[in-house]
């Protein structure tokens, strides 16, 4: 497949309350929203805490560590931007801080990915911004 025929991967839509998350990721910092009222770290970033709807939020610098909660190795590209990536790993990551998020597991053979595998954050350049991704922990 000629790379020139592959369009750019999608950028995340900027949703309310998430700007700081993406700005931080672009500086290769992985942050999570935290509710000061109920002391809860949550995902995904939004204008209020999903537990108490409190809007007094701040940000914590997350460890960037987690484990694979579940995953699938995608063999058929869902759209042209992923033609050059198959097979790739679509995973749900359970963060050390508790919340789960979706990401790809990069920089490894997809066949080696397992549920429970320790992973750490890495950042993928999408042009205008960088987005948090995960890779196996190299010990």
């Amino acid at each position: 497949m000629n790379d020139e025929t592959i369009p750019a991967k999608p950028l995340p839509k900027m949703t309310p309350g998430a700007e700081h998350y993406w700005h931080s990721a672009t500086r290769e910092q992985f942050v999570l929203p935290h509710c000061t009222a109920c002391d809860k770290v949550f995902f995904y970033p939004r204008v209020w805490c999903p537990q108490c709807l409190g809007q007094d939020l701040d940000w914590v610098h997350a460890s960037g560590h987690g484990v694979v909660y579940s995953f699938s190795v995608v063999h058929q590209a869902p759209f042209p931007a992923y033609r050059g990536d198959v097979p790739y790993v679509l995973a749900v990551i359970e963060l050390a801080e508790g919340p789960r998020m979706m990401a790809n597991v990069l920089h490894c053979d997809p066949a080696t990915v397992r549920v429970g595998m320790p992973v750490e954050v890495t950042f993928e350049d999408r042009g205008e911004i960088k987005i948090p991704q995960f890779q196996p922990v190299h010990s």
Partner: protein
Amino acid sequence: MVDAVAIAAVSEMKPARYPDKDGHALYIEVVRQLLAEWHLKPGDIQGLLACPAGMAGGGNADIFVHEQLYEELGIHPLYGDTMNAGGATYGYMVQRAALAIRQGLADSVLCIGAGKFPKVSTGGAEMMARMVSHEAFEFPYGTFIPAIYAQVATRHMHEFGTTAEQFAEVAVSSREWALRNPQAATYGTEPLTVAKVRASRPIATPFHLYDCSIPLEGGAAILVANASVAKRIARQPAWLLGMGEYHSHRNIHQAADLMDIGCGRAGRMAYERAGLGPGDMQFAQIYDAFSVNPLVFMEELGLCARGKGGAFFASGATRPGGDFPVNTYGGLLSFGHTGDASGLSMIVEGARQVMGIAGDRQLPRADIGVVHSYGGMMSEHSTLILGRQS
């Protein structure tokens, strides 16, 4: 005891591609077919619930389908709406219809849907991935509907040792049934084997092509009625003995527990309201966008032991002649998935089995059965218990 409500009549088009029919034309065809099969007149329809036409077609969905249908049929319903909950739409329609009928708002309510399925290979996959994924926190990671469902399958494999071959057994079982259903899209084809499923094109682990439902078009209609109307229309109505509803999440990564995704919670409510338990069920019809769903949801519905869904399907119990038949019309896997209308097919079949009109695939024991459907990415759940005795 609440007033008895039943499914009095059902009708469904054969899933296929209908290039000459748009969403509205499919709706009209479904109504025409129902009225003809059951010798009904438009005046027999006192209420009407419809699903937006053209949703899966990439926007421009018509949310006034109910109005269009009133006008086409020349009726003036006492109760009506267009509503959507994805695949759970029609389970919820039956539940809403029952509530309205018990409240005396109408003697009968028509629950109807028609759907088209976009071609997956020509932009359909991206369009549907956008529709079902968070636009900031999921879609940019290359979401793909099979890979979203696969999160449940992979987790189940991890927790219970379920194998890809056991998921394939679900597809094999469904095909056995479809070969007995002339209305199924795969009727007249060859039986599947686990080896054939595993040899088909890999889509997203653990799913291969035959672990996925068949995208087609079609529609169906279900007339829900009070006791007197139901008895007039049907020799054996399918009485609604219990119903349950549960809403879990919107985006799959937000599901609190992939092994307790809402199916069992809706199911327990339905059993409780019916005064019955899983052990009273004689068959199940379970929405199956992918092979993972019947396997895991049999467990959630208490119809087999936790973690034993794979062994249950591998045992042959769910196939023709088995102890506990599942998806006796072929399921969306082998009957066909009619897009926005897909959530009707398992209810129509559950009703047909209880009504005793399932033809060559009629079960010898179909006094009580359970029908489970869900919408979104296993986000919202509907369980119905149908039986021969009100």
